């Protein structure tokens, strides 16, 4: 791969189109498989009954909301450090999809909280608050970029905000350990055995992969629009 060749928007444009098509196809297939496992293979939970099936979208969406933010901040930092045009466009293309997954994580969390905790929402809960702040950070980054006419200056301003906001990511992730929250601890970690049935875990991981592929597809579609709109391809 000639990485620097593809760092130019003009040469990246057709590659992004091909990658977007393949990722979109993979996302559709993985979602169908994930939903099939989630609804027809995974057993009913002994404690939560069928309500737990929200896990197959809630956890992958929450992961994506944090992961997309880190990737966005990474591209923002690359753009600031190297002054490459495509980096700012990638950061701009990631923000709406990140915000969308943050909203989905909050929405599905509320609908899961009601039957399990007895409430849709708790003000002041560390996990819920830090995820809500993440949504506002995405909105802030998007609004700041939209408020500045010159796209390169807008990219730089949005980049600074995006990079500062990264401190919120470990706060979200560790909030369940650092504070007393209603939210349960991590069900999956790299260091301990998963606390759920194998089919549940499989379904969740396949849905996570599906959301990954979806995010890649829409981000590349959006970066193509941005490249065109800025008149570089």
């Amino acid at each position, binding site marked *: 791969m000639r990485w620097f060749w593809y760092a130019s928007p003009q040469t990246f444009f057709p590659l992004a189109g091909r990658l977007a098509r393949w990722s979109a196809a993979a996302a559709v297939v993985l979602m169908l498989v994930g939903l099939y496992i989630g609804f027809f293979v995974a057993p009913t939970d002994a404690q939560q*009954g069928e309500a737990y099936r929200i896990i197959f979208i809630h956890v992958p969406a929450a992961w994506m909301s944090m992961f997309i933010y880190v990737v966005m901040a990474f591209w923002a930092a690359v753009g600031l450090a190297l002054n490459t045009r495509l980096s700012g466009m990638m950061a701009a293309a990631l923000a709406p999809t990140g915000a969308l997954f943050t909203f989905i994580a909050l929405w599905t969390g509320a609908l899961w909280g009601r039957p399990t905790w007895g409430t849709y929402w708790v003000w002041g809960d560390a996990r819920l608050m830090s995820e809500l702040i993440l949504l506002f950070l995405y909105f802030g980054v998007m609004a700041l970029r939209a408020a500045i006419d010159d796209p390169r200056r807008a990219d730089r301003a949005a980049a600074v905000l995006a990079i500062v906001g990264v401190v919120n990511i470990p706060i979200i992730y560790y909030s369940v350990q650092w504070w007393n929250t209603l939210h349960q601890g991590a069900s999956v970690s790299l260091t301990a055995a998963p606390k759920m049935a194998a089919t549940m875990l499989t379904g969740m991981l396949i849905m996570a992969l599906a959301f990954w592929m979806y995010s890649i597809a829409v981000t590349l579609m959006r970066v193509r629009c941005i490249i065109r709109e800025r008149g570089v391809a």
Partner: protein
Amino acid sequence: MTDFLAMGGYAWYVWGSYGVTFACLAIEVFLLWRRSRETEA
């Protein structure tokens, strides 16, 4: 089938989650499709 849709009494929570999630994804894809058509022209 009715049993499946009832989700053991949790229909609103489960289908409310899945419905809104996939509606969001569909809207994003539609908006992007429209935007890419506008920028091509």
